[in-house]
């Protein structure tokens, strides 16, 4: 028997758990402005996250999926993407969305039960809205990438999916198409170890999620999703490759979901405090903060000012969110079709009559 092909999965990490370099850092480590902007986005996202959880706990917001543990990979994605690229998210991508230019108010509106949270994305009008059904967005991503390829544009698509999502046909069918058609798309499988209560080990017998790329004919790359430098370097490379017509990449970003699945979940039912403590020791936000300190780019005063600034921005967004009147009930039929069919007109009139005064 002879070996037909040899496959490999690359894995990248630059910083240890304390933010100390394990190796020579990539060139982007010289871009102080980018790194500081990244750190600010991570802190903003974390501030937003804890505030929305508090809003939910006090009955001012609906069920919410915490981003805790995804701040680093999300920030790296948001920074690597060009404005003209298209982002296809799942539902734990707040750290990307702040960088795509979504307002914090709109992000709150979405979780606060208002469709308008996905409406006015003037900074990224082509980005897809949050997809709730697991991995379904992967098919949309290859569709967007197909359109880009058909028109011969130098743009790319980034699609996020969780580790649980990589078990679904949508993901596998989509990476397969991306390989067959050489599509300009980067899949980021954010492996946070948990699909609600199901651990990563029960999702697949494969050693890595990155290696699923091999069956699709794509490069697969595992990266420490809490290592800002590693994540950014791998994303920059994959996006450049995609925009240059060289095809798709699957990146597995390894991290840990530090919060519950959503505010409706209680993770203490299925994971230990010890596991969680170990995961916090690898927290990527703290790791980058340590690195900034070590390189004389950060100090306690700057941290204090940043925390205050993020808090102000979030509080202002909360005020705007809470002051936003709900849509009139008739809005439930107004966006179903471009033109309301006669068959629905009577139902719209019924809604309008029942909630008279709520008409827009």
């Amino acid at each position, binding site marked *: 028997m002879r070996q037909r092909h040899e496959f490999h999965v690359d894995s990248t990490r630059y910083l240890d758990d304390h933010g100390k370099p394990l190796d020579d850092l990539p060139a982007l480590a010289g871009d102080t402005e980018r790194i500081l902007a990244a750190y600010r986005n991570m802190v903003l996202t974390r501030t937003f996250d804890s505030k929305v959880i508090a809003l939910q706990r006090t009955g001012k917001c609906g069920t919410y999926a915490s981003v805790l543990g995804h701040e680093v990979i999300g920030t790296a994605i948001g920074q690597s993407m060009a404005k003209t690229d*298209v982002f*296809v998210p799942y539902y734990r991508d707040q750290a990307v969305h702040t960088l795509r230019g979504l307002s914090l108010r709109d992000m709150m509106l979405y979780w606060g039960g208002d*469709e*308008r949270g*996905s*409406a*006015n*994305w003037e900074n990224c*009008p*082509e980005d*897809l*809205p949050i*997809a709730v*059904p697991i991995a*379904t967005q*992967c*098919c*949309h*991503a*290859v*569709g*967007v*990438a*197909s*359109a*880009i*390829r*058909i028109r011969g544009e130098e743009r790319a698509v980034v699609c996020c999916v969780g580790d649980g999502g990589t078990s679904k*046909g*949508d993901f596998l*069918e*989509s990476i*397969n*198409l991306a390989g*067959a058609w050489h599509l300009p798309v980067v899949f980021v499988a954010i492996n946070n170890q948990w699909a609600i209560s199901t651990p990563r080990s029960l999702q697949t017998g494969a050693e890595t999620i990155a290696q699923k790329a091999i069956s699709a004919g794509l490069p697969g790359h595992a990266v420490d999703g809490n290592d800002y430098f590693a994540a950014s370097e791998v994303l920059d490379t994959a996006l450049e490759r995609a925009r240059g017509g060289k095809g798709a990449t699957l990146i597995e970003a390894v991290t840990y979901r530090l919060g519950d699945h959503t505010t409706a979940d209680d993770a203490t039912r299925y994971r230990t405090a010890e596991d969680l403590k170990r995961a916090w020791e690898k927290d990527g936000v703290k790791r980058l903060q340590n690195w900034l300190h070590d390189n004389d780019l950060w100090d306690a005063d700057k941290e204090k000012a940043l925390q205050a600034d993020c808090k102000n921005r979030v509080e202002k967004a909360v005020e705007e969110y809470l002051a936003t009147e709900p849509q009139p009930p008739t809005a439930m039929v107004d*966006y*179903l*079709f*471009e033109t309301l*069919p*006669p*068959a*629905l007109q009577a139902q719209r009139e019924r809604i309008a009559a029942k909630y008279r005064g709520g008409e827009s």
Partner: protein
Amino acid sequence: MSKGELRDVTLVEAVNLALHWEMEHDENVVVLGEDIATNGGVFRATVGLKEKFGFKRVMDTPLAENLIAGTSVGMATQGLKPVAEFQFMGFIYAGMEQIVSHAARMRNRTRGRLHCPIVYRAPFGGGIHAPEHHSESTEALFAHIPGLRVVIPSSPQRAYGLLLAAIRNPDPVIFLEPKRLYRAVTQSVENNGEALPLDTCFTLREGDDVTLITWGPCVMETLQAADKLAHQGVTCEVIDVATVSPLDRETLLCSVAKTGRAVIIHEACRNGGVGAEIAASLAESAFLDLQAPVVRVTGYDTVMPYYRNEAAYLPQVEDIVEAVEQVIAL
């Protein structure tokens, strides 16, 4: 492709003509599906498109129906107008989540920022001695979904005009082609790019005694039944619903106001079928016009039998005649 009036056009050729016309006149129209490019589709509905418009716009996909449904959503958000083919309606179910949860909802979810001008085509219905899963007529599943249009042509002319309308419509359309009629009849088709209206019934024949409400493949047997009944002195108004969702109730109610009697004919099984929705609408809004109960002639509430018995499942001309005689007697 010849322009102007074409004689002896089959329904499947009319589909092909409409696709050619629209791809030629709108560069955003793309066609995708299994075996649709080089092979021209298993029914040849897409034959010639690849040669004319190239692989970039006429795409053979991997064999994955869910992917076909979902990729179309992504393409549509970029302003393309995908016309996706499911090889048979019995294989559309793998794409249900993408159609129901995304194509039908994208406009609503984004308050109009993104929308899905997609046509999902599928040959449907029985009568061609096909294997299991190749003879389904489950239009009611889609008619139940808000945000979708379900359009079913029943003649070459309507296939041409309604498909053009479906492609030009800015929202998703499930376009079901009765494969029993693909080559059963021919008509002259004016290949001039003129669409027919959606959301509108077509009154195929006027009559005073009873309204026969049908769509798709059963239009053929219904017209034959109307012929037979005419010999008995019963004049039937025959309505091809064409867009089974959203429903043009106005045309149906006006007709029943005139005739006072209605028989609904469809191939799909009875329970929860589109006929039930029509019957309920007539009961709600035309009760005082009705001189007899609304009667349905439909497939049975069972799995479509393998083809040796499919004729026993399909509504036959005599079933329709019998139903009309029953309502006329009252």
